[in-house]
């Protein structure tokens, strides 16, 4: 990449429907393709793409619950610190991350994998609901 020591930012906004979540996946994949020397490229890309997809799915299903809405997504790639940060914003119903019970994986539950995957696949996950919007922040170290 030409600007190897700089933070590179991408910003986009999608309708909050399942139909367009592939746009997010494809965009993230394209961004990560530009990172040199990505370890276990296929797995790392899949993990990041899946975690962001799961947050988007959560926003569509729970924050907007079938109503129209938008998801704003900021992606910050920092090749100097070898990290990728993805901020997602919605204006739907707030969500209580602390109330979510982790799935009992020994029981192979039918539901409950989404947020578990987000937390397992990313290095840092935060969520804040404010007056203007709800904000997810996902960070992955590209070591």
């Amino acid at each position, binding site marked *: 990449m030409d600007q190897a020591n700089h933070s590179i930012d991408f910003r986009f906004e999608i309708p909050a429907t399942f139909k367009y979540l592939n746009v997010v*996946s494809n965009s993230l994949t394209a961004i990560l393709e530009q990172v040199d020397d990505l370890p276990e490229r296929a797995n790392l890309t*899949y993990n990041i793409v*899946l975690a962001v997809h799961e947050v988007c799915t959560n926003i*569509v299903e729970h924050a907007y619950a079938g109503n129209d809405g938008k998801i704003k997504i900021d992606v910050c790639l920092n090749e100097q610190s070898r990290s990728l940060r993805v901020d997602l914003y919605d204006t739907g119903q707030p969500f209580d991350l602390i109330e979510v019970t982790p799935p009992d994986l020994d029981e*192979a539950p*039918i539901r409950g*994998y*989404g947020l*578990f*995957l987000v937390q397992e696949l990313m290095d840092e996950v935060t969520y804040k609901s404010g007056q203007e919007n709800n904000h997810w922040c996902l960070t992955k170290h590209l070591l």
Partner: protein
Amino acid sequence: MELKTRQVNDVAVLELEGRFDAHTAAPVRDIFQEITSQEPACIVVNLANVHFVDSTALSALVAGMKRSRQLGGDLRLCNLQPPVRMIFELTRLDRAFEIFTGEAEAVQAFGPQVESR
């Protein structure tokens, strides 16, 4: 997502292609519902051409597997791509499902009684 179904003796084989996610899972769930409406519900899902599986897809597969086992059958998986396989391992679903490297092997594992029925 492309979805093809075939019958190999008494085993229903589903061949999926593309993204298996919240947007595409509904027709797969419908097919599982149809197959598991009668005994024995023996299903093989071939994921060779599936490059993306999300939590909604996992839910559909687990529900199909549990329902088919209630009916004396099973839902088995084959040809998982490495990143998809890793998600099954992370969620420990690699222990819940019988996972095979090839479709023929997955079908044959249902045993001669199903194959010759």
